[in-house]
């Protein structure tokens, strides 16, 4: 399975609402005992929505094409530079210094940067520089994804951004793979050209520089470079004597430096090949496979954390017991702006009832619960206090309790969360909602605005609430504006 396709597919699925419980449960039973990653992979392959799979395929094809084009370009650049630097017409010998520069030093330096780029942000912060290299890489990726949206007119840019936002780490890792792959292609292109040239032509190497570089300096440099292979391949180590002999001054007009023989001038090839192999080809290959393995690891970890995948796995594991009237599966298209609307609204109201109410950031003891029941038109209601002065552990316990209540009574499929509508929602609530969703599965969560009075000032954050809740893209989570509750405190 193409990992990219799976990534895009699961992200897009995450926005979907329709899950056929029976089918998923049947699938779970079929692959009982297999690990979660395998099940999700297989489920996507066998049961995934065709439309989503098609879209995911398109994206992954686009990205694969982008990757292939980049790789080919870099490969050709490698061949080109290799061809130019190894050009030898039998007169002036090939200078080894630019070869070392373009195929050893610069690529090696870029390799180090590409590997350490994640930590650059911190490193630079230490020096109080405000450059953000990581974000430059992120922006690059975002750009690639955005370009793809231009080619696919029917895709909303939101989806493109969503893929990135939801899978930042995965995508960044993919970006690194792309970098390593392209660089590998560059070095490979050059390596092939050099190899062919060496076999088919007798090449003469020398070293030449305008700088007043002594043979001693050159020797030390080559000695350091050849340290990794000096014992296993001594023939690819350049001796001091050879360095002195192959120093070339073009102004003298000689094609072979004084004291060197034509045969001696060819010995550099093994040193150059080993340098490219040891400092570029091999580490690039290692980096490439390292990021590939890492991507798989991150994907497994992150994709399995999606509320959607978690829900799938849960349904696969748990027996599908259904009693009483059934709610119809609801498609996201029927839910506009997270507000209950159309026929489905009535369907839900008729077939579901209230089972638990959560007071988000309210002091339960100070609130007149009876008044809330009256306004919600219910006789019994399990009320819990969440957020605010609760610890996160206490909230987790409340989620468990709420989940038990729902599991214990299948006809009551709805949880309401009463919120201070005049306050704006924050990420703390979003985390809570996500946890709650992960625990209760596909049950309706209704956010009911609590107002202090019927004054419009109470609703000034209405847009913020809708925007924030929409961000979650959970179709089973709604803000029910039709059912506001007026706040009444207990009389002391």
């Amino acid at each position, binding site marked *: 399975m193409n990992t990219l396709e799976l990534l895009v597919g699961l992200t897009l699925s995450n926005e979907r609402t329709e899950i056929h419980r029976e089918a998923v449960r049947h699938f779970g039973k079929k692959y009982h005992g297999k690990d979660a990653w395998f099940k999700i992979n297989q489920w996507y392959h066998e049961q995934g929505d065709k439309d989503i799979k098609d879209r995911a395929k398109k994206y992954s094809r686009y990205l694969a094409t982008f990757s292939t084009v980049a790789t080919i370009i870099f490969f050709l650049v490698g061949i080109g530079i290799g061809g130019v630097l190894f050009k030898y017409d039998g007169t002036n010998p090939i200078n080894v210094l630019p070869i070392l520069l373009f195929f050893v030093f610069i690529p090696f330096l870029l390799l180090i940067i590409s590997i350490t780029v994640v930590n650059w*942000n*911190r490193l630079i*912060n230490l020096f109080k520089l405000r450059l953000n290299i990581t974000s430059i890489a992120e922006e690059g990726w975002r750009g690639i994804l955005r370009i793809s949206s231009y080619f696919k007119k029917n895709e909303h840019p939101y989806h493109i951004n969503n893929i990135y936002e939801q899978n930042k780490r995965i995508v960044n890792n993919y970006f690194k793979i792309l970098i390593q792959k392209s660089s590998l292609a560059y070095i490979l292109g050059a390596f092939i050209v050099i190899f062919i040239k060496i076999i088919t032509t007798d090449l003469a190497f020398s070293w030449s520089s305008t700088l007043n570089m002594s043979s001693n300096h050159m020797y030390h440099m080559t000695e350091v470079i050849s340290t990794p292979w000096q014992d296993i391949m001594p023939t690819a180590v350049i001796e001091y004597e050879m360095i002195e002999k192959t120093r070339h001054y073009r102004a003298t007009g000689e094609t072979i430096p004084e004291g060197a023989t034509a045969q001696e001038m060819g010995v550099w090839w093994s040193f150059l090949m080993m340098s490219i192999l040891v400092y570029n080809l091999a580490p690039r290959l290692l980096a490439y496979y390292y990021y590939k393995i890492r991507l798989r690891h991150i994907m497994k970890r992150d994709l399995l954390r999606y509320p959607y995948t978690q829900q799938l796995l849960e349904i696969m594991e748990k027996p599908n017991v259904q009693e009483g009237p059934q709610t119809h599966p609801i498609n996201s298209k029927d839910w506009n702006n997270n507000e209950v609307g159309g026929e489905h609204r009535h369907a839900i109201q008729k077939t579901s009832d209230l089972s638990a109410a959560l007071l988000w*950031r*309210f*002091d339960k003891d100070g609130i007149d619960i009876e008044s809330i029941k009256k306004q919600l038109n219910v006789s019994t209601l399990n009320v819990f*206090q969440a*957020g*605010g*002065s609760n*610890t*996160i552990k206490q909230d987790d316990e409340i989620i468990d309790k709420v989940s038990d209540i729902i599991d214990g009574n299948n006809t009551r499929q709805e949880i309401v969360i009463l919120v*201070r509508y*005049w*306050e*704006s*929602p*924050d*990420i*703390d609530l979003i*985390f809570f909602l996500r946890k709650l969703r992960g625990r209760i599965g596909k049950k309706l969560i209704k956010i009911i605005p609590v107002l*202090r009075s019927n*004054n419009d*000032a109470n609703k*000034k*954050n209405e*847009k*913020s609430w809708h*925007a*924030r809740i929409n961000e979650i893209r959970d179709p089973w989570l709604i803000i029910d504006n039709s059912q506001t509750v007026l706040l009444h405190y207990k009389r002391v």
Partner: protein
Amino acid sequence: MDDKPVFVVTGPPNKGKSSLVSALIHDDRIEIDERAGTTTKSVEYPIKVDGETMLAIWDTPGFENVRQLKELLSDWGMKESGKDNLELFRRFCNEYRDDRDFHNEIEILTPIVMFGGMIVYVIDSSVPYSDSQYLNEIEIIKMTGLPRIAILNPIDGSDELEEWRTHLKEHFSLIKVFNPYKTTFDERLRLFDAFSHLESIWEGRIHKTIGYLKRNRENVLHDSANIISLTVLEVYHSKYQVPCDNLKTEADHIKLLFNELDEKVKRIFDKRKNEIIKLFGYRKIPVNASYELKENNVLQKTSIKKYLSPNQKALIGAAVGASAGVTIDLTLLGGGLGAPTVLGTLIGAGVGYLKDFDPVNIIKGVSKTGRMYKVDKLKPELGFIIINCFRELISLLYNKSAADREPIIINYDYDKKTTYKFVQIMNKVIKESNSDIYSDYVKTELRRVVREQLVQDNKMI
């Protein structure tokens, strides 16, 4: 603590933090929105004098994940209060720098751990206080051990002010009610003054800043007076003419001349208006203020009454009444025992005080030279109209908060203005308007009169 005052404005989302910064720093470019989450990064806004930062105010995003932060810090052994806690906050900022879950908290805490300073906690005091909603944030602020001030922003009224005061007084050294949208220049200075009392090391510098801000406002008024006087001089010195058309009557030509004058003056006014708006430091606030001179609108309503003070009018009336009374007395050879004179004076004064005079025109004379109709002289009323438009604009700009993004609309009313003060100098301007240059006396005198009026209009504390 550094002697450079640093204020870090914090609080829940959408409670007016950016508005407060915008008002204090007087920058109408700071983004403000009715939706929460407009501010996503902490930004430093300094007040600089000659390139030197006198004080800095940090605008920060709202608290988002404060409960988790508090639990994390408690796990690290953070105490309720104490300066050593800053080290733990620093550690948190370093370790969680790239954690998106704590993005806002990192943004808020970074300037705090970098510069210390004073924390300004902004809340909307028109909504009720609740421990569940706000206590975690307040406790985090307390943990920093830094001086802190609470700003109660009564966005939609002051119903809950006392409740807020009761709950916050144990946590904050100072609690101030401040509405950034409606604040005036003086209130802004008073808030800075309140800040200065919290940290003795900053007192001198903040007072110095207040002094600079006051002086800067005075300078702005003086420069505005200069601009206004230049506008008036330019208007009176400009030539207004239209080509003669034999098919048109003289009345038609006067109408055309009036339109020409109106358009030209409007252009001059608008150009100078923008200079004044810039002087007051506004860059984005829309100003729907223009010089208004409509033939059947302003002009017809403009009367001598509008630029003479009621007392002056009463005096003129009394003189007219007294003259009539004296005439009657003389006719009766003193038979009226001076009663007609006394009565005439009283009636004249009363009528003068109340009665409106006939409308006047702003064009004093029109002549035809060759194939052109041109304005010979303008009446002083035009100058009064221009000056009053500017005065109204400046009064609005002077007391407008940079956080108040409503457009400025001028609805000026002649009756409220003291136009009579300018009569004398305007007559001198008219006298010199046809010469090549104005005398230094006219230039400086006009500037002085306008400046005095502006200072009087906008009295500072």
